[in-house]
């Protein structure tokens, strides 16, 4: 039976790269996203690449009232899922957030609150299903607050911690929860940033995410060397850290 994959935030470059890997092995794929035309374009791409079935559903992550019905529809359509990827998010304008409570809270709502709300709904179903893996995309920004991206980082810290607890809870139910921490990835979200040798392409990160969903455990840094980089960054004493430019 083909694998059933659910992707939330399906028009993100990383999410689509993951969906392509599943498509190549004939998976059935359910895409949830905000922009209809972009979702349709991705669905067509996945069909050409070998997906045995692709369905799409529209959802703006801030539309909390529709979270439950969206998940219910998806579950009913494919009679459950073997793999789930939660990938939606925005990179807020940190300079604007610095002086705007509204923008800071908005970004937090998309990057943290909406993710947690969806995770609660998905977890309940996976727990009943007693099978499957769910990966959620967090960020190294969540490992330590830095001046350049703490509005984003605080939300990702919430996601990381929530996912950690969820993993603990679902462990006994045969469900794996994976926290994905991609380093710098060259996507439309990061187009404005100058690229160094530390940057990766979405297919590279997607390979790690699929491996994690297949048989991985816990927190997955991708590429793997980011685990070391962030371990070092976390170790820097606060007094020293506040004087760095990171």
């Amino acid at each position, binding site marked *: 039976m083909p694998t059933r994959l659910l992707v939330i935030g399906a*028009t993100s*470059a990383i999410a689509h790269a993951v969906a392509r890997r599943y498509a190549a092995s004939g998976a059935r794929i359910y895409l949830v996203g905000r*922009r209809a*035309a*972009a979702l*349709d*374009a*991705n669905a*067509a*791409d996945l069909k*050409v*690449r070998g997906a045995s079935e692709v369905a799409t559903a529209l959802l703006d992550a801030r539309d909390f009232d529709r979270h439950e019905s969206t998940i219910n529809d998806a579950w009913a359509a494919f009679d459950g899922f073997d793999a789930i990827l939660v990938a939606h998010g925005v990179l807020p304008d940190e300079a604007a957030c610095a002086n705007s409570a509204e923008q800071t809270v908005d970004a937090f709502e998309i990057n943290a609150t909406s993710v947690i709300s969806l995770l609660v709904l998905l977890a309940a179903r996976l727990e009943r299903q007693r099978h499957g893996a769910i990966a959620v995309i967090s960020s190294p920004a969540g490992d330590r607050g830095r001046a350049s991206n703490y509005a984003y980082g605080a939300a990702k810290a919430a996601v990381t911690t929530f996912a950690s607890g969820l993993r603990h809870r679902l462990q006994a139910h045969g469900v794996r929860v994976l926290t994905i921490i991609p380093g710098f990835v060259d996507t*439309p979200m990061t*187009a*404005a940033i*100058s*690229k160094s040798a530390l940057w990766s392409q979405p297919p590279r990160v997607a390979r790690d995410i699929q491996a994690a969903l297949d048989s991985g455990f816990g927190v997955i840094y991708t590429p793997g060397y980011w685990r070391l980089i962030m371990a070092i960054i976390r170790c820097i004493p606060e007094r020293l850290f506040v004087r760095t430019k990171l």
Partner: protein
Amino acid sequence: MRVVSSWGRTRRVLHDIVPVPDRSSLAEVVRGTPQPALAFGNGRSYGDVCLNSGHSLWAMRGLDRFIDFDASTGLLACEAGVLLKEVVELALPHGWFLPVTPGTQLATVGGAIANDVHGKNHHRHGTFGENVEQLRLVRTDGMDIECARDVRPEWFAATVGGMGLTGMIASAILRLRRVPGPWIDSQSHAFASLAEFFELSASLSRSAEYNVAWIDCATDANGATRGIFFSGDHAEDGTPASPRADRRLPIDLPFSLVNGWSVKAFNSAYFARHSRASGPTREDYRAFFYPLDNLLEWNRLYGKAGFYQYQCVVPREVESDATQALLRAIARSRQGSFLAVLKTFDDRAPVGLLSFPCAGTTLALDFPNRPGVVDLFRELDAIVAEAGGRVYAAKDASAPRQMFERSFPKLGEFVAYRDPGIASDMSRRLFGH
């Protein structure tokens, strides 16, 4: 702003990179971009056709989706940022292949159209553009044009080979060709003079689909030109090929590994190997078509200063004398590198106003970027112009405007189709804007 260079890496210049994430929002992206802008695919053009120094580049690799593929007809619709490699990997297991493929599969579909690239089988399938069923052009003036050879043919002719200057090529429908499998039966034939090359070319191009010759530019200036002629055909063999791993040259070398000594050594070894093994060999299509793709970023071999590729074509009537003159000039200069390639083009009506191929012989070779190399190009230009030939825009980084105007008589006709919001370093050099 981000530093971007073309494949030749002779210049590193800042550009404003504009993401192009999906085709549904194209009109807004194209109209909203600060002008002049230019589509940038995977950066495999050698010269300045893909650069727009200090201005905007549309990052076309974001448009890398397939739209539709009919495995019974071989028609493939895809976005322009799809790599040729991705097309082949999708189509080959279904028994389809690109009718025309350049020497790298890491170019995008849009780039292959904009440069109307050719392969080693011009006499069978022509150029890449001849096998494009339809394309979509999105312009900064708000026009959104679907065109084909028989639908708005003037737009199609201007865009194929139009160097990305007629609008953003957003998507295309490609007509693929049937093949039995991923294998090529190839054969090599050593030759010791240009006359022998032309004899081999005349006889083999009737029997074999793919023909290309490698020549040793390090030979003496007396006219003795040794080389190896490779011919190939798709093998009747459906066994799947194994996946290959890429190797990458991770750093910029401070100096060029390509110098007089290394070129001589490489060429002698290469000649010795292929003149011995002249029987037919069955090769993986990647080994036959894309020998250098396996070493990603091989352009770094030329060191920090980068390199140029010079490619020209000279017409059939004078091909022998003109090619001889070009090779003599190169041998005298002692600047040539190990990648010197000779191919012949057949007499086919060009599909684009600025398509490069014409009936005759094309010579392509790489030169490390060293003082005096551009002077040699002007010397070569003079021979090409005298012969009534032309230089290839996809490779060029230095030809003067007059050379370009002499090369392409339909340039005046082309200008009317330019997108006023699009320009490149090349267009400023060759058109003045």
